[in-house]
């Protein structure tokens, strides 16, 4: 924006290094993201082989009797007779081809099961983050720079929103608004059924975002450009919306990357409380049913989501905040 022009003689030379700097940043971040993903794949593979007793038994289910032929078939299909390092290479190779294996319980490819369930989860998360962002923004602007008496109760609310276990928040909202007041359907897929799950997922996020945004607003209000705008006779609304908002949003954007993980975990809980279809339901059903290929596939998809969101935030950051471009 209106940063003070620095007396820089070599103006011509400035754009080129800045651009290669950004390109290099993209490459290092991309490399880092790939290493992290590879680490997550390796960890998941190692965790699978922590399973006590034989993996074959876990896949078949401990209480089921199977013929030796079927046992051999399972072993062959999952390559479990091979040495560990070959299994590892094999699994990593399949992953690179986008092959997540075959679900044992659903008898369909894991990638298909995930593709069918990812929609509702993304809808839920997108609604929740929009809601949380809007609520936090309004609260931050309304409470920034106010007296202790205004901020105290809000601070208490924020601490409560962060501390309340998400599954209980869901249960509470369900009991009050669906069972008690009957405002919203208990289960369903319509927009009405999305309200309570989205609120449940959004509240703790708003509890984290609001203080961060408020701090951003307060810091921006002390900047010289605010004084300039006020001296120009700009109204308080113009000062807030045109000058302060941008600065308040920047720290919140950084948090988005971290919140991606919290939102994913929250979605698992919320889908369970409200019996919503989605990746979380798929995962919990797979965990209780020991459907290992589905567990691994879902874990890796969530890790991919987390890494991608963080990569995008990292790369967008200098575009949002021009001060970080060099």
């Amino acid at each position, binding site marked *: 924006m209106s940063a003070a022009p620095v007396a820089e003689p070599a103006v011509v030379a400035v754009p080129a290094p800045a651009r290669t700097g950004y390109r290099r940043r993209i490459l290092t971040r991309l490399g880092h993201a790939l290493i992290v993903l590879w680490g997550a794949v390796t960890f998941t593979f190692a965790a*699978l082989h922590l399973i006590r007793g034989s993996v074959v038994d876990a896949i078949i289910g401990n209480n089921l009797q199977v013929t030796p032929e079927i046992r051999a078939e399972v072993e062959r299909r999952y390559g479990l007779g091979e040495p560990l390092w070959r299994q590892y290479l094999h699994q990593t190779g399949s992953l690179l081809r986008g092959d997540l294996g075959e679900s044992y319980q659903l008898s369909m490819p894991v990638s298909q099961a995930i593709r069918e369930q990812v929609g509702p989860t993304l809808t839920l998360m997108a609604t929740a983050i929009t809601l949380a962002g809007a609520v936090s923004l309004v609260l931050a602007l309304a409470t920034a720079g106010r007296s202790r008496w205004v901020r105290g109760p809000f601070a208490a609310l924020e*601490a409560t929103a*962060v501390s309340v276990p998400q599954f209980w928040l869901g249960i509470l909202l369900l009991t009050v608004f669906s069972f008690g007041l009957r405002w919203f359907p208990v289960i369903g897929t319509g927009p009405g059924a999305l309200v309570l799950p989205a609120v449940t997922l959004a509240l703790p996020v708003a509890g984290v975002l609001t203080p961060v945004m408020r701090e951003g607003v307060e810091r921006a209000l002390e900047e010289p450009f605010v004084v300039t705008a006020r001296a120009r006779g700009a109204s308080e609304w113009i000062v807030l919306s045109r000058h302060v908002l941008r600065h308040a949003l920047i720290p919140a954007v950084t948090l988005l990357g971290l919140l991606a993980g919290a939102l994913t975990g929250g979605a698992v809980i919320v889908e369970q409380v409200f019996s919503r279809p989605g990746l979380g339901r798929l*995962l919990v059903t797979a965990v209780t049913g020991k459907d290992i290929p589905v567990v691994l596939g879902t874990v890796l998809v969530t890790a991919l989501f987390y890494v991608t969101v963080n990569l995008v935030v990292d790369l967008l950051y200098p575009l949002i905040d021009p001060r970080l471009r060099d």
Partner: protein
Amino acid sequence: MIDSTFRAAPGRALAGARPGVWLAFAFLALIVVASAAPGLLAHGSPDAADPLRTLQPPGAGHPLGTDQNGRDLYVRIVYGTRDSVLTGLGATVLALGAGVLVGGLSALGGRAADAVLMRAVDALLAIPGLVMALLMITALGGGTVNSMIAIAVIAAPGYARLVRAQLLVVRRSGYAEAAVALGRPPVLIAVRHLLPNALPPVLLLATLGSGAAIGATAALSYLGLGPAPPAPQWGAMLQQGQEYFSLAWWTAVAPGAVLTLTVLSLTVVGQYLQKLPAGRLER
């Protein structure tokens, strides 16, 4: 990583308000008593069923009402305290131990160890907390001890990062350099001089983290992956009573409210303690 975000953000003013802090300490004292000697706070057995008085609303005789089997909710909540709280605390202790080990090796074990360990920590953090816990439960099986381990795996990377960061700061201080100059063996320096000075902020984070860990173990129990049915653990109570919430709201409210108050008290106390060192410096 999430823990440190949560630490920085919420409710600063609440931690500053004296009455809130005192209430939080008082509630935690009550929790300690309920864990150590539940018989002092509640009479009768948590498993005593009464088929003639199922789903009774709160009232005389049953201050918090009864559940689907006619068991007194107040007695069950008091007797469930130990299991509900200790699982989370145990997970925090395990995570701290692992965090000190990994963070210590990373900060003091040379560049190669640092690079490898920190990339591993990044990789662990890439799997969202609850999803990671579910992965560990798949590998280890359900139950109290395994959910403790699962929650510890979630929390450990955050502690490892903070321990490493603290050690890197402390290592540059005068007394550390003096110890090196005196030719003390490196392990002794690490244990005697570096760790005691690096740990306080980590322990503060652990106070807040133990609240999160208690909430997370309850969540696992709610998903049906915690202790087996008769156990009066708070999360498990909410899981077992699920079908009756529409008939009896108090079965949904009571265990969750106690759980929330516990986590909130730990948050408030943790934030209060974080402010203390600054105050001590002023004096």
